[in-house]
C-alpha cells in the first residue's frame, strides 16, 4: 500500500507542475494558481490511493484546480462588492503542445532577468520542482520564514510589475535560456557538496528543460553536464568528507548516467558546429574525466583542448585556473604554477590559493604552507583544508 501511495504522490507531483503551469495562464496569477493546485493535489492525495487513480489524472487535477480558483475569485469579489472576472475554461484533455508551452512560460517567468537569482532559485524549486515551501527552505538551508518571504516578494513583483507569462521570441531565447540554465546549474552546485536532494532536483529540472527544448544546445549541454557530474555522486563523498576526483573509487560511478551524458554531449556538439556552447563544452570536459579508467589515464590533451575551446567563449580566470590544473597533470607543476601565478585578481578566491599550495608542494617549495594559510583565510571549505594539510604534512 505504501508503494501505491508513493506512486500516486509521484504522479501527483509531476502532473501538479504541468497543471500549475496551465493554471497560472488561466488565472493570470502565480499565487492564485498555486493555492488552487495545492487544493486539488490535497484532494487527489486523499482520494486516489483509496479510490484508484482516475483515467485522466491531469484533466482531473486541472478541473479541480480551476474550480477552486473560481471559488476563490468569487469569494474575493463578493468581499469587495465587485463583479468577479470570468475565468477562461480549461481543456481536460489538453494537447501536448499546449502543455509544453505552458511549462515553458512557467520556466521563463520563474527565471526572468528582472528577478534576483535567489528569487529564481526559490521559485523554480517551488513551482517547477513542486517542492513545498518547507522542503525548499530545508534544501537551501534557510529558515522557512525567510524562504516564504522571498517567494511572496517574488510573486508580488511578477504580479505588480507585470512580468509577462510568455515564451521569449526566437531572438531573445538564447540569452533568456542562459539565465534559466544558470539558475538550474546553481541549484546543482548548491547540492554538490552532499545535499543530494538538491542535485536530484537540479537533474530533474535539467531533464525538463531538455525535454521542452530538445533543439537547444544549452538545454542539452546543461543536462549532459549535470548527469556526468551526478554520475560520480556515490564516490564523491566518503563518510561525510568530499573525495577529490583523483582519489575517487571509479567503480562507484554510474555507467548509465555516463552513457546518457556522453550521448548528449555528442548531440550537443553536432548542433554547435561553428560557435561552441559553454555548457556542451563543460560537459565534454566532464565526459573526458568520466570515461577515463583511472585518474592517471585521463586524456589530459583532450581535457586541455576542451578548456581552450571553452576559453574562446568564456574567458574567465576561474576557467583558466581549472585549465592550469589539467596542465599540471600533463606538463608538470612548474608549467602549471607559471599559468596560475599569471592570473590576475584571484587573491580573494580560495581555490587559487589552494591550487598554488598544491603546486608549490609538488615542487617541494616551503611557500606551500603560506599559500594554504591564504586559502584558509579566504574561505576554502574545511574538507579541502584538511586534505591539503594532510598533503603538506606536519609543518
Amino acid at each position, binding site marked *: 500500500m505504501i508503494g501505491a501511495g508513493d506512486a500516486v504522490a509521484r504522479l501527483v507531483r509531476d502532473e501538479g507542475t504541468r497543471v500549475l503551469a496551465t493554471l497560472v495562464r488561466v488565472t493570470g496569477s502565480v499565487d492564485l494558481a498555486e493555492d488552487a493546485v495545492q487544493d486539488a493535489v490535497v484532494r487527489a492525495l486523499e482520494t486516489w490511493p483509496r479510490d484508484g487513480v482516475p483515467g485522466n489524472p491531469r484533466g482531473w487535477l486541472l478541473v479541480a484546480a480551476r474550480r477552486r480558483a473560481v471559488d476563490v475569485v468569487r469569494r474575493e469579489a463578493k468581499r469587495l462588492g465587485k463583479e468577479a472576472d470570468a475565468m477562461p475554461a480549461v481543456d481536460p484533455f489538453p494537447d501536448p503542445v499546449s502543455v509544453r508551452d505552458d511549462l515553458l512560460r512557467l520556466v521563463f517567468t520563474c527565471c*526572468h*532577468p*528582472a*528577478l*534576483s537569482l535567489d*528569487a529564481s532559485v526559490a521559485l523554480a524549486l517551488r513551482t517547477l520542482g513542486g517542492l513545498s515551501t518547507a522542503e525548499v527552505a530545508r534544501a537551501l538551508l534557510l529558515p522557512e520564514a525567510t524562504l516564504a518571504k522571498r517567494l511572496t*516578494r517574488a510573486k*508580488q*513583483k511578477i504580479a*505588480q*510589475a*507585470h*512580468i*509577462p507569462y*510568455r515564451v521569449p521570441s526566437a531572438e531573445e531565447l538564447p540569452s533568456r535560456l542562459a539565465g534559466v540554465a544558470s539558475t538550474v546549474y546553481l541549484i546543482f552546485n548548491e547540492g554538490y557538496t552532499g545535499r543530494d536532494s538538491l542535485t536530484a532536483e537540479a537533474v530533474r529540472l535539467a531533464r525538463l528543460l531538455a525535454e521542452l527544448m530538445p533543439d537547444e544546445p544549452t538545454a542539452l549541454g546543461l543536462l549532459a553536464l549535470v548527469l556526468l557530474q551526478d554520475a560520480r555522486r556515490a564516490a564523491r563523498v566518503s563518510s561525510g568528507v568530499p573525495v577529490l576526483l583523483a582519489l575517487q573509487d571509479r567503480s562507484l560511478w554510474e555507467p548509465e548516467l555516463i552513457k546518457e551524458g556522453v550521448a548528449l554531449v555528442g548531440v550537443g556538439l553536432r548542433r554547435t558546429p561553428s560557435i561552441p556552447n559553454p555548457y556542451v563544452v563543460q560537459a565534454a570536459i566532464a565526459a573526458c574525466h568520466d570515461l577515463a579508467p583511472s585518474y592517471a589515464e585521463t586524456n589530459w590533451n583532450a581535457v586541455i583542448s576542451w578548456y581552450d575551446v571553452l576559453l574562446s567563449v568564456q574567458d574567465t580566470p576561474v576557467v583558466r585556473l581549472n585549465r592550469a590544473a589539467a596542465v599540471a597533470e600533463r606538463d608538470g607543476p612548474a608549467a602549471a604554477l607559471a599559468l596560475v601565478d599569471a592570473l590576475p585578481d584571484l587573491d580573494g578566491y580560495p581555490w587559487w590559493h589552494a591550487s598554488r599550495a598544491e603546486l608549490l608542494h609538488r615542487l617541494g617549495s616551503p611557500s606551500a604552507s603560506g599559500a594554504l594559510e591564504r586559502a584558509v583565510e579566504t574561505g576554502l571549505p574545511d574538507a579541502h583544508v584538511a586534505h591539503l594539510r594532510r598533503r603538506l604534512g606536519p609543518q
Partner: protein
Amino acid sequence: MPQYAAIIYASDVDPTRPEATELMQDYNEFGAAAQAVIRGGAALYPTATATTVRVTGGKGGDIVTTDGPYAETKEALTGFYLIECADLDEAVKVAAQIPGAWGGAIEVRPVVDFG
C-alpha cells in the same frame, strides 16, 4: 509659469495595502487641495517591484537588468518619463532607449492603478 517636479521620499509602503488607507486619505486631501497646480503624478509600488536597467557599452549595447531599485549615489536624478507598455519586458526595452541608461541607470517601477 515654471513647472517643478515634487519627488516624494517616504517610507517604502504598498499603497494598495489596507495599512496604507489612512496615508492614501491624506494624499487624496492633498490632491484635492492642490488641484489647481498639479499637472500629473503617480503612486508607485514599493521598491521590491523595481527593476534597474543599464545598457553596457553605450547606445545599442547589451541590456542588463537587475532586481531592485537604483542603489548607488554616483549618478543624480535627472528626469523621468511616464510610459505605458504591455508588460515589464516592453517597459525595459523602452527604458534601454533612454540616453540615461547608456552611462547611468533607469529604475523601472510599476505605477499603481487605483481604478
